Each structure stands twice: as structure tokens, then as C-alpha cells.
């Protein structure tokens, strides 16, 4: 199982077990087939123009402590220099 995986409506939010920093989650199944990543500390979205539904933003804000905690279990290929 991934370090974190939950659904918010049709959008799947996941933290991979092995990933590169900084802490982030992957979002897929966005309206119009979009997908991207969200920084878990700043909630900045990549790619920048990717629109996150309000419900997904609220989901991420509500778990802003849980998800960085889940990231601590990730096998990170780096943690910065």
C-alpha cells in the first residue's frame, strides 16, 4: 500500500512509498482528466495552472498535519542537500 491513499470524490490523493522531496502528494482524476502534485507544506500545486476543486483544497487543508506525518514514512531519494 502507498504511504497515503484516499479519495475525495473522483479525485485520488496518494503519497508514494519511494519518492523525491520536498514532501508532496499526487492528485489524479481531476476534472478534465488533469493530474499533478501538491506540496504538503505550502499546498502549492504543480503544474501551476492546475485547478484543484474546492473540496480537494479543503481535504488537503484538513489533513495538513496528517499528510506531512505520512511523508515521514516515505523512502526519500533525497531530503535536500
Amino acid at each position, binding site marked *: 500500500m502507498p504511504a497515503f491513499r484516499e479519495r475525495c470524490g473522483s479525485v485520488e490523493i496518494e503519497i508514494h512509498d519511494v519518492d523525491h522531496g520536498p514532501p508532496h502528494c499526487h492528485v489524479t482524476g481531476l476534472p*478534465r482528466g488533469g*493530474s499533478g502534485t501538491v506540496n504538503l*507544506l505550502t499546498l502549492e500545486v504543480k503544474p501551476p495552472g492546475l485547478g484543484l476543486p474546492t473540496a480537494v483544497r479543503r481535504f488537503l487543508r484538513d489533513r495538513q498535519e496528517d499528510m506531512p506525518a505520512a511523508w515521514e514514512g516515505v523512502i526519500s531519494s533525497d531530503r*535536500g542537500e
Partner: protein
Amino acid sequence: MEGASAVIDYDASAIGSRVVREQAERVLDELSLRRTRGTVGVTRPDAVIGQRVLIVGDLHRLSGSQGLDHLAATPAWMSYVVLVRTESDRRLLRDPDVAMHLNDRLLLLDLTTLKWRDSSASSALRAYLRAVVEQLRPDRVRSARFAAVDDVLWLEFGDGLARALNWSALSFASRIGFAPVSAAARRHGQAVVLVAAAGQESTVDAAVLRGEVDAGFAAQVAERDHTEREVAGSRIRHIRESRGLSQQEVAERSGVPQESLSRIENGHRDPRLETLRKLAAAFGIDLPKLLAQMAEE
């Protein structure tokens, strides 16, 4: 990488319906692809070599007089989105020889059961093309398998790069905690799931795997990640400075070494949750409040 799809050219001239072609081209324009107007299937490899080419069209028009053999035999940098949309397409699809050729490079989208009038077909086409273009990125894995007998992870990336990776030589292999027996690409190629004999699973990010075999790509990711860390660090610095605190004062209050705080603020390292908790206390707030403020700016 975000910009990777911009180097993919596409040709949607093999879609018979003007309405469908316009819808497909609108979606492809949204994806910032450049348009080519060449003859389908072919042609001037010297003009496009080194780039990815995406060709979208109705099955019967793409197969043409030469059948699908010539499509399957074209170079790896060409990919096809095959639309099944008309009665001719349906007839061809029932041909076993045709079905046999619908491999990874001939991506099949059946639109016959969808209605254009209620826009469900348009939405399906949009979502499908986005997913297809996503899959052509170098940080997507198109296919993965694990050969336990050789201890080798076989990967084909979205841009066609194929590599056999010696499992035990991978930087993260020893930390996964089990020996995989199988592997598969998932989530539109964003990750590879590794499965152990006892059933444990581990998802490995596709960009990490690409970085293992492509130093140039790894350097690009490292630069992008540093920029992202700088944003988080600058927000912590702003919160500190808005309280009139120096790094030294925060270090004394929090117990986080001043050098560590400096590296975090300058984007050279990711703060752990416990470090953030200590910094929040030094700022006179709790962790949720600090995280909320970092996300607000």
C-alpha cells in the same frame, strides 16, 4: 516534467468528422502541443526525430490501404490514438488481425457508445487525450516488469527510453524491506508498484526511477525541487521576520540549530514535522497554525 509535453507534435488530420477533429484539436491545444500537418503514418523522420509525435485518427483512416502493420512498425517516437467512431471502425475492430496490432503504441478509444450531443464523448476524448499525453512524458512509466530470476526491473518510460535495472544496485532497494517478485506501471505511469511473494506492495515514483537511469533528468528534478524548497523556506523566514525574531533567537527558543534553520529557510533541506513543531512553539503558535500560515501566502 511540466514542460515535457510541449515538445510533442501531433497530427489530428486522420479524424473524419470535422466536429470531432476540432474538439480533439482544442484539447491538444490546451495541452500546449505543436501541430504538424504531415501525411499520416509517416514520412519525414528527419523533421521530427528526437521528438514525440502523437497521431490521432479514426481506425479506418489510420489503417488505410496498408492496414495496421505499417503503424505498428513505425519508430518508437510515434504514438497513435485510434478512435473507434464509425461503422467502418467497428467492422475493422472485429477483425482479429487488427485487434492483434492494437498494442501499447496504438491506444484505442471506443467512442461508439457515447453521444456527442450530451457531450459525454467530448469529455471522454478530453480525459483520454490528457492521459495519453501524460503517458508520453519521460517521467512516466509505460510498462514495467520484474524478472526475479535475474533480479532485474525492466522499464519503458513514456518517451520510449527502455532500460533494465539491476535491482540490488538501485539506491532505494535495500530500504524497501522485501525482494519483489513482480512489478507493474500504475496511475497512468506515475508510479510502479512492486509486489513481494508474501503480498506486500511498495509504490515507487516514476521520476525517481527515471533519475536512476538518466543523470540529466535527475539534475532537472533536483533544480526544480530546490526551487520548491525555497518557497517553503521563504515562508518560514517571513513568519519569523514578521515576529521580529532573528535566526539566532529562534534557534535558542526552539532548540533547532541556527545552521539547520538557515538551510531550511534557504531551501537546502526539508524540515521534519518535529522541527516545524519546535519552530511553531518558538513563534508562539501551534503546528496547525504554522502550517496554515505557510499555505496562506
